[in-house]
């Protein structure tokens, strides 16, 4: 018995070590590709004048779709901010998803809206529309507001897609703050590629503690709270080091639901957003790409490293856990829905690399960590714990986590350097030291809970309470 336990422990030690090496290697390779892609992008972009799109009759038209649910606190400012984005040929569609508060009334009053006799070409099935409104005031001629019965974010986005008059659609979270030239930047890949571009995404940044006035970002600051600060690092790693590389390899699986631009025709042919999953953003992109592969149409999903959109990250552990729980369920649901693609040569790099790695290192990683820890605890109770190995392995993972976070900060420093003050950078470096010990275990637990909830059939989004940007960050930060 003792022999078997000892052998099992040894076997698991090696298994976990190899798994960790696999993750480390994937990070290193992705970082290297990302660094190269970033350099190339910046070099290419030094010749670009985005303002050219503004005055050009050749610029494609864009419909901006923003679903709103109980957003009365910020809706008027946020819509005003969207209306002032730099893009000429653009309409802004706000979809009120059956809000229980006075979101709709506020919009009607602020923008002098009146109800239209509107007939919708229902290309994607949705919940009923109560009314379509446009502004009487010509100053808001770009604005269209749709009032509909509650059906969730995916359903609201589908209504926006049905209403959209333009060939490109940009889907955003209405509470996000967009950079004024974000549409100009997202449109460019659709115009410059020889292959058909079906979607473009950009970098999402954390706006906690930043100063936002009337839906505009006034000053960029590092979040005051540790929990939000860690997410700054997480977003650096995910966007600057991860997605940039995946896009370069043409294996990108996800464009953030917070802000992304899509080819409307392809979205409609793919069937629009799926309202049966909580990971509707990832699921849509995978479905669109799958459709293109099945139709044998060469296509591309572009990603640009410019910071385009600022969002408020969870500031409490409870909300963070709910968010990560939902992300885990969304990922697992998408992987399950498209399991046919996994290790299927027909789906190119998506089937042979992106999806398998996503399963192995995104979905499986928290499970391995959790059960590995559980196994170690059992071994320790039974007196078979290999303590030197445990400490050395922990040291290894910890050192790697620090190295990755410092690399992520370096990426930010060498690319866009949004946090100008040295104090901000040092704060982020300090945060990196504590993240693996205090923050990471919580996200692992949330992922485990997410998998459990998925198995037990939980479908809810989980309430995402936001504090809003209205308050000014304290001076001296």
């Amino acid at each position: 018995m003792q022999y078997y336990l000892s052998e099992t422990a040894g076997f698991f030690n090696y298994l976990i070590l190899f798994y960790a090496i696999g993750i480390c290697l994937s990070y290193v390779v992705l970082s290297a590709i990302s660094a190269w892609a970033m350099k190339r992008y910046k070099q290419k972009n030094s010749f670009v004048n985005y303002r050219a799109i503004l005055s050009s009759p050749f610029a494609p038209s864009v419909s901006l779709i923003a679903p709103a649910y109980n957003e009365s606190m910020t809706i008027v400012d946020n819509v005003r901010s969207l209306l002032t984005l730099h893009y000429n040929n653009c309409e802004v569609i706000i979809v009120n998803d059956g809000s229980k508060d006075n979101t709709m009334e506020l919009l009607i009053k602020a923008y002098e809206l009146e109800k239209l006799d509107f007939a919708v070409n229902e290309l994607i099935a949705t919940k009923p529309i109560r009314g379509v409104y446009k502004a009487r005031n010509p100053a808001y001629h770009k604005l269209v507001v749709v009032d509909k019965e509650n059906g969730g974010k995916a359903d609201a986005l589908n209504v926006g897609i049905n209403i959209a008059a333009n060939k490109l659609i940009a889907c955003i979270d209405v509470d996000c703050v967009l950079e004024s030239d974000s549409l100009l930047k997202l449109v460019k890949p659709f115009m410059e590629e020889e292959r058909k571009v079906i979607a473009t995404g950009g970098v999402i940044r954390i706006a906690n503690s930043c100063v936002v006035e009337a839906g505009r970002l006034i000053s960029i600051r590092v979040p005051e709270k540790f929990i939000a600060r860690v997410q700054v690092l997480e977003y650096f790693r995910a966007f600057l080091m991860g997605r940039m590389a995946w896009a370069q390899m043409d294996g990108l699986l996800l464009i953030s639901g917070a802000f992304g631009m899509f080819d409307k025709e392809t979205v409609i042919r793919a069937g629009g957003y799926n309202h049966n999953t909580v990971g509707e953003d990832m699921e849509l992109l995978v479905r669109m790409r799958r459709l293109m592969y099945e139709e044998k149409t060469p296509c591309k999903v572009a990603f640009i490293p410019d910071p385009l959109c600022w969002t408020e990250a969870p500031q409490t552990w409870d909300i963070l856990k709910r968010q990560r729980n939902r992300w885990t369920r969304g990922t697992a649901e998408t992987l399950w829905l498209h399991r046919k693609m996994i290790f299927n040569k027909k789906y190119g790099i998506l089937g042979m690399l992106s999806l398998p790695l996503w399963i192995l290192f995104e979905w499986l990683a928290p499970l391995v960590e959790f059960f590995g820890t559980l196994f170690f605890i059992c071994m320790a109770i039974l007196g078979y714990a290999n303590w030197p190995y445990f400490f050395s392995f922990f040291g290894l993972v910890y050192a790697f986590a620090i190295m990755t976070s410092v690399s992520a900060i370096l990426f930010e420093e060498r690319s866009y350097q949004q946090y100008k003050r040295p104090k901000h950078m040092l704060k982020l470096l300090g945060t990196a030291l504590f993240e693996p010990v205090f923050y990471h275990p919580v996200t692992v637990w949330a992922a485990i809970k997410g998998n459990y909830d998925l198995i037990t059939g939980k479908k809810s989004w989980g309430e995402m309470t936001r504090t809003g940007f209205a308050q000014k960050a304290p001076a001296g930060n």
Partner: protein
Amino acid sequence: METTYPSRILPAIPELPDLVQLNLLTSLLFAAIAFILFLFIIYSRFRDGVRFRKRRWMDKKAQQFITSYLFNADELTASHLESFRQKYITNAFQRYVFIENLLKLHRNITGESSDRLRTLYQSLGLHAYAKQKLYTSSWAKNANGICELAEMGMKQDVELIRAFINHSHPVLRSEAQIALVHLQNEAPFSFLDELEEPLMEWQQMQLARAAQKADSIKIPAFSQWLQKDEDTIVMFCIRMIEHYNQYDAVADLLKLLDHPSALIRKETVVALRNLGACEAAEKLLQIYGNEQVTMRQEILKTLALIAGDELLTFYNNQLHDSDKGVQFEAARAMAQCGARGNELISIIKNNPQHGLQPVAAYTLEPTT
């Protein structure tokens, strides 16, 4: 006992198992890399600060010198220029900042001052530096040199630049094409004759903008390139015909309605609409039945503008198309057919039992 490789490197922990030693060694390596990256961040910030100060200093020097050249050119002798060149322009970074200032100013002025800046550019030997960039193997340097030569109006280098119009790098060939539009006043788009690479929408937009911004260039008849094999060039020409209202090209555009590419046919229909080409109505009606839904919508939109009331029955028939988009366009076309069309749509709108009532109501909605 034989020592393992890690324990030879870390003699202080020779008693630990190999796996543990390997973990410790790797941890140390990661920690060291993290520390080096941290130092690099600090260094990078420091270097940026130094560069920023150096740049500000050079900006000031460049602006002072350029201003004094513009307003007191007679007082600045060749030896003044040479001494400035020796002192500031031989350093690559300083030269870069100086050229940037010169180009920025040149972009914003015209006439005599612009000519003076061009003379200064050549007197300081910057023209030669720019030409050198065209002989390097880096596409970015090539493109940079081309931008510079185009901005400074170095017409003598047109042939050098022309060599890049079919380059494999899209940014470089785009910059070369834009430069040719700037530099060849008489035949700004003659490069289209030799162009074999695709002309993507982004490049098309840049070229259209360059044509708009360039001084006194002769806009050619774009119909001469409508027969090119490369679809993107044809697309560009259709758009330019439309943009410059080249009505003479309508006959050539009509031929494109039989083009195998659906995108070209669609763009042609849009161009015919915007040109108000009434003679296209017959051909559009002819192809209507064979086209896809989106194309049919475009044809209906166009017919509504270029044809008369005589197509009312045709539009009325299209109202019963299975595609809602086509129904909308047919209803809109009817609404534009004077009083009779409006009356028909109003009858449908006022009949709540009619299947097309929402379509008719939407069509008559003044804000849509």
